[in-house]
């Protein structure tokens, strides 16, 4: 079907960190391509002033009133937006959620396998420390689903490798400063730890806290922020420090845009699409650092072709 007249909106609830900035940039880039190729008429972004789920729900309701054909959402909550999402579906608006997904059955979800991401962290550490050891866990924002799923993955990983033991757990709220403070607050009471498992984006803060306390750096699982990667490289050059990074690429927004376009196009698209998470190994480190702007994040931007491939891959299952 012809989608050149369709308008889609991006509902976003936060813009203040590098990940979200990169996410918005990827969206804008894809939107520009789509509009210039007459695949879409408009792809506007809307950002709420606070991170509140209720504000975003109100925003989605307003977007319905604006008469968009589709809404892409990076949701503040998987369930609490369902009321608004359902209203959108009822108004025959296509809803595609990504990163922060919504559970309403009528919506599409582009997810990263967070549980696997958590498990793989422990798996990686098991290759580094076959004898196991103590782990510190940095969690995300309490009470959110992403935090829960990653945590479950980590717990499953530890269950599979019982030589590891989680001796401390703090809330980093996915924010470096918060993570640094939280880690610092427990460090003095912790026995030696060999690894830090986390949710991405708080590795550098943890490293800072360990350095400030004068403790040896454990293997900290990194995110994809440039400062994390730069620190990693610096340590590697200095003493051969090696670790692993797993996160969701902010460019997933561009994938969401193209998937939305495909849905509007009338293609059959499964409601749940799983895409791989972005991982960086020691071998990829230099390449990743090159693409990440200073202070930004390592990223990839997807194309329409990528979207079609992802849809095919998920349809086969």
């Amino acid at each position: 079907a012809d989608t050149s007249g369709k308008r889609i909106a991006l509902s976003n609830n936060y813009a203040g960190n590098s990940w979200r900035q990169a996410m918005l940039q990827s969206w804008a880039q894809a939107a520009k391509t789509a509009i210039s190729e007459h695949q879409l008429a408009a792809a506007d972004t809307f950002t709420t002033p606070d991170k509140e789920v209720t504000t975003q729900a109100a925003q989605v309701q307003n977007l319905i009133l604006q008469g968009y054909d589709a809404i892409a959402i990076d949701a503040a909550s998987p369930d609490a937006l369902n009321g608004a999402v359902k209203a959108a579906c009822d108004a025959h608006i296509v809803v595609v959620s990504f990163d922060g997904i919504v559970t309403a059955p009528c919506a599409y979800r582009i997810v990263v396998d967070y549980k696997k991401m958590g498990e793989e962290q422990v798996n990686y550490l098991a290759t580094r420390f076959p004898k196991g050891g103590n782990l510190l866990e940095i969690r995300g924002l309490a009470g959110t689903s992403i935090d829960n799923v990653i945590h479950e993955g980590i717990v499953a990983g530890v269950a599979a490798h019982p030589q590891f033991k989680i001796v401390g757990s703090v809330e980093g709220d996915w924010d470096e400063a918060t993570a640094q403070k939280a880690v610092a607050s427990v460090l003095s009471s912790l026995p030696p730890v060999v690894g830090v498992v986390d949710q991405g984006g708080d590795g550098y803060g943890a490293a800072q806290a360990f350095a400030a306390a004068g403790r040896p750096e454990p293997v900290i699982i990194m995110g994809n922020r440039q400062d994390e990667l730069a620190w990693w490289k610096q340590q590697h050059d200095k003493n051969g420090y090696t670790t692993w990074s797993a996160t969701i690429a902010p460019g997933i927004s561009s994938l969401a845009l193209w998937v939305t376009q495909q849905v509007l196009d009338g293609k059959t698209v499964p409601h749940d699409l799983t895409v791989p998470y972005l991982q960086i190994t020691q071998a990829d480190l230099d390449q990743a650092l090159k693409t990440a702007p200073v202070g930004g994040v390592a990223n990839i931007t997807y194309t329409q072709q990528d979207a079609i491939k992802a849809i095919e891959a998920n349809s086969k299952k």
Partner: protein
Amino acid sequence: MSGPAALAAEVRSPRPPRQFNARRLFRTALPALSLIIVLLAIRDFNPRAISYFGFNLMLNLAVPVALATVAQLCIITVSDLDLSIGNYVGFIACVTTTWLPTRPWLGAAVILGSIVVYGALGALVQLRQLPSIVVTLGMSFVWLGLALLIRPQPGGTAPSWLAGFMGVHVPFVPFPIVAAVVLAIVMHIVLMKTAFGAVLRGAGGNPAAVARSGWSLLRVKTTAYAMAGVLGSLSGLALVGVSSSAEANMADGYTLLSIAGAILGGAEFVGGRISPVGAVIGALTLQLAAVALNFFQLPELLPGFRIPPEWQVGAQGLILILILAVRALINRGEA
């Protein structure tokens, strides 16, 4: 009596009291004025929004906010401040989605118990003469912790009767407007019109005087806090009714929003000067100001102009400032 005293009858009162009332009336009308300004702006940007369907969508989330705002107002009435209302609403939402559908008795008992706790807080604040801000700050952690214990992950379902109630279709007038009007009237009657409301406000204005007249300040504060507990619980229920599921920190922002709404509506932090109608209007205004932003475009001036994403947050602030500036201008012209 003769002479001066007798003459005084005619010449006293250089300022007839009525003049004061006119100013006061104007001040009370200010919140409504802001609301009208916002509505006009919205109509200009998106005429489609000013409809039955549009109001339902724009305002159904304003109902829980308005309830939280009047809950806050009960506390402000006695010259205190509640920093825990947002977390309390989130807690109630978690209780509602976790227990009300399956074990309604347990859920109801927990909600009632929480209201009792709220009342007890008022008693504690009065008995020990504690700053309410610190106590409620502590309580905000308590409610959040309890909510996380009940519902470590988001989810749950709204009891069907609740979702049904919040989605009810009133003929002609959208439900949120009906709800807001009813709320404003009820609160106005309770706080401003009843004999009991006068004592509450009096305790905010001059507690010593109220105590000297033989009232128990303990009872007054307990009542005010318990009322806030009731309204906060209703807010939690309404929120679940709209969003149909819950998470622990879903209403964190209500704390600030409720204070801002009450103040925007003409309440003062101390001294028991409040306006329930103004508070409800203030809550609606704040909600609609956000709407106005989403609709903001200048089709005639700059075709296709949209606020770039990084300025959308700031535009929200500017809109608020703009509303208040217009208010200040009108106020100055009048005064």
